[in-house]
């Protein structure tokens, strides 16, 4: 499919995309959640007519605006980088992947950008109710745009609703609803937007706590904490619930990723969930190259992993070694060498077809098309493993286990910590002891960086855990990359890194200054 692939090009292209995505994700979750918190506050203002609620709304809206602009800026790069840096991917799956992006623009971005202008500039130009409706529409638009991009991402994790067309050498969509209601998409959308709500809630609780520490804006801060804590608690419970359903889906569609998240090398029935663990590389190799990570210490909850994945302690959870050598017959998961063999056969058939077309041997091409590409058995038993044809060794299908393990566990631990944080905040508010408990106020403030780490860790788990695939089982990243010189990509990587860092510094600095200034009278 591709002749010589320069690995440094692949690595730098991945680095550039990761850089953009991680910077982008610093700003998006706050937009997702804060938009709803602002809308709730403004609704109370419109209902009560109390100007203090308006003051509160406008304060958080100012912070929203600072964050929104940079989120938009980094977002545009992501969309276009699919074309600039992953052009082979763009063609291979553009027929499916492009549609959600276009729908995102038409349905969501215009909604968001149109009413965000009313939200910021319309206070004295439109009626109270129109303004309130605009604020709610911004929240809906922001979250709707998340839906479509997450549908696109979920499709990469679990490609469904398409068929391969050898003539055009690409996958083509045949079932839009299968793409939209892909089980991974449903989990991913809910998990991601609720995690955004959680992040924004921690942000509001943290900033408000700072005001109380400084003995400023007590009335406003307490009410902000109340709204954010209730909103955050409900959201974090939903994050936990959707995380659980997500894990079950991943265990089925991305079993290697699932095993890597748990650093599970040898599977078993009654498999335990590692709550906390420390890994160390051992001398043992998976096959030839990749070292096995052993636990130096771990706290394990017996049987929970089997229960999570299959609802019973009797369920077998395969480890990385099992997946390499045997697969999992209970769930029709083949061993990696078997998938490589099937993928190579699919690739040979495709090459034969293309060769016949180039030689104008249409009769032969038609035979290949009818015998293979139009038969369900070939598509389901061979072509779905097409990507494995490009792997040199079964080890290539294993992601970086340490990264997947630590990022996943960091995310989960912090997630439970935030549930506790919200419960404590609500408890103290109702007991009237919030101001007295300085330790809690400081803890809430220091939780702001932690929630960003948690949020980023979630994406690291999702994206690093699925390596080497850009499309699960169908296309590795090395095949998807644009044929550019590594120097070009290194240059743009540096340009983006410098620019994003400068803008982030400006954003944080402005944000801190605005918070210190406090709500305007």
């Amino acid at each position, binding site marked *: 499919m591709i002749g010589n692939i320069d690995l440094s090009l692949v690595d730098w292209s991945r680095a550039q995309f990761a850089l953009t995505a991680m910077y982008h994700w610093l700003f998006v979750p706050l937009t997702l959640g804060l938009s709803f918190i602002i809308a709730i506050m403004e609704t109370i203002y419109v209902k009560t007519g109390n100007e203090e609620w308006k003051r509160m709304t406008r304060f958080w809206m100012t912070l929203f605006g600072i964050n929104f602009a940079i989120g938009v800026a980094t977002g545009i790069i992501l969309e276009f980088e699919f074309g600039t840096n992953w052009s082979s991917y763009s063609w291979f799956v553009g027929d499916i992947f492009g549609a959600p992006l276009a729908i995102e623009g038409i349905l969501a971005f215009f909604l968001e950008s*149109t009413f965000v202008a009313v939200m910021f500039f319309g206070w004295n130009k439109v009626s109270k109710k129109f303004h309130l409706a605009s604020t709610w529409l911004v929240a809906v638009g922001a979250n709707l745009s998340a839906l479509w991009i997450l549908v696109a991402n979920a499709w990469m994790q679990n490609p469904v609703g398409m068929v391969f067309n050898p003539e055009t050498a690409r996958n083509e969509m045949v079932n839009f609803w299968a793409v939209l209601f892909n089980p991974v998409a449903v989990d991913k959308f809910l998990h991601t937007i609720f995690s955004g709500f959680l992040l924004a809630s921690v942000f509001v609780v943290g900033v408000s706590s700072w005001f109380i520490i400084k003995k400023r804006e007590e009335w406003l801060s307490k009410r902000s904490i109340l709204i954010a804590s209730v909103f955050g608690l409900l959201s974090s419970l939903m994050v936990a619930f959707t995380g659980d359903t997500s894990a079950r889906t991943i265990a089925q569609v991305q079993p290697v990723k699932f095993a890597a998240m748990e650093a599970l090398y040898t599977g078993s029935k009654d498999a335990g969930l590692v709550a906390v663990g420390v890994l160390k590389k051992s001398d043992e190799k998976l096959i030839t190259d990749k070292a096995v990570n052993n636990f130096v210490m771990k706290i394990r909850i017996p049987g929970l992993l089997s229960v999570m994945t299959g609802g019973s302690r009797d369920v077998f959870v395969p480890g990385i070694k099992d997946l390499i050598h045997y697969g999992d017959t209970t769930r029709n998961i083949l061993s990696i060498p078997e998938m490589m063999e099937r993928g190579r056969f699919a690739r040979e058939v495709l090459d034969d077809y293309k060769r016949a077309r180039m030689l104008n041997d249409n009769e032969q091409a038609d035979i290949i098309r009818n015998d293979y590409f139009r038969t369900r058995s070939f598509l389901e038993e061979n072509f779905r493993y097409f990507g494995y044809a490009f792997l040199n060794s079964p080890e290539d299908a294993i992601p970086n286990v340490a990264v997947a393990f630590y990022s996943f566990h960091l995310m989960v631990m912090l997630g439970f910590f935030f549930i506790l944080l919200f419960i404590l905040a609500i408890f103290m508010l109702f007991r009237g002891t919030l101001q007295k408990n300085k330790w809690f106020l400081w803890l809430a403030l220091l939780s702001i960086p932690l929630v960003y780490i948690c949020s980023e860790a979630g994406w690291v788990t999702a994206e690093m855990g699925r390596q080497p695939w850009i499309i699960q089982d169908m296309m590795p990243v090395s095949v998807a990359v644009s044929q550019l010189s590594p120097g*070009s990509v290194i240059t743009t990587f540096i340009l983006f890194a410098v620019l994003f860092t400068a803008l982030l510094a400006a954003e944080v600095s402005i944000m801190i200054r605005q918070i210190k200034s406090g709500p305007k009278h």
Partner: protein
Amino acid sequence: MTEMISYIFLQHYWWVIISLLASLLVFLMFVQGGQSMIFSLPAGESQKTMIVNTLGRKWEFTFTTLVTFGGAFFASFPLFYATSFGGAYWVWIAILFSFIIQAVAFEYRSKPSNVLGKKTFDIFLYINGAAGPFLIGTAVATFFTGSYFSLNYMNQVDWATPFHGLEALLDGRNLALGLAVLFLAKTNGILYIINSVEDGDLLVRSRRKLIFNSIAFLAFFLIFLVSILLSKGFAVAENGDIVLEKFKYLHNLLQMPVVLILLLAGVCSVLWGLFTSIFRGKRDSIWYTGAGTIAVVFSLFLTAGFNNTAFYPSLFDLKSSLTLSKAASSKFTLTTMMYVSFIIPFVVAYIWYAWKSINNKKITRDEMMEDGHIY
């Protein structure tokens, strides 16, 4: 119903949508045009604040239209997306770069503790204002003049020059369209400011600027139009081969009289807008030049893609040139997307309503002193 709609129709339908988005984008680049004059148009800081705030309330529309244009192109003609973006890397990266710095510049420029300083963010606005329209115009010109790429049997792009798109700057016709789009954006920017700001001195200064920019636009646009109408174009022969045809784009216009009429009507509308503003002192001329801009760009895109024409030609390997049928998504995807596109009139309606609501009062110096969301 789906079976009755032909694949060819869907490809053309989506080219119309792409053309419409492109034409709206060029009109909305009045924001960029205005930005490119923030150092030369205002007499002082308060005028500059008024200009920035007038334009700043619309930047998201331009930005969103650009994003939707990209998304719609990806969904409907993914081979173009893969070929042009992956091949002409540096041109698109430069365009993107100029748009990243725009988004934050409005929001951060006047905020205290913005690290980089107000001047830097104003320079960002200037760079986006000048480079954005010019580079987009130059990139679009290659729809007529061609690029250097080839596609292999798996439709993977190989760009034939090490400059990855920057070589387009060496073709005078590309430069002419780039400059035409830049001066059109400036012209529309001035007219938008005239329509939106209530400040006597700024109005006088704007009208003075208008004359030069509109002449420059007309000159570069004529150079581009005449040159492409008289040069060879990239036609699709009956056997599917791409061939060079003399006066192809002139033939397209003559063979598609509706497109020709649209082009001429657009040009007349732009000229009428300029005439009423310069000679009659009208304030609402932006709507004539805006409508004209949309009509002209729309008709140029139809000329590039319709009537058996390769809309993204390759000078390096003619047979790799992209046509609507070669670059299009599958029938199923185009049909699905067509249903989604039916919502566009509703989107336009609420944009128009919200726009009217915000623009019901002209921007004044007093408003800039109020305690609102000021850029």
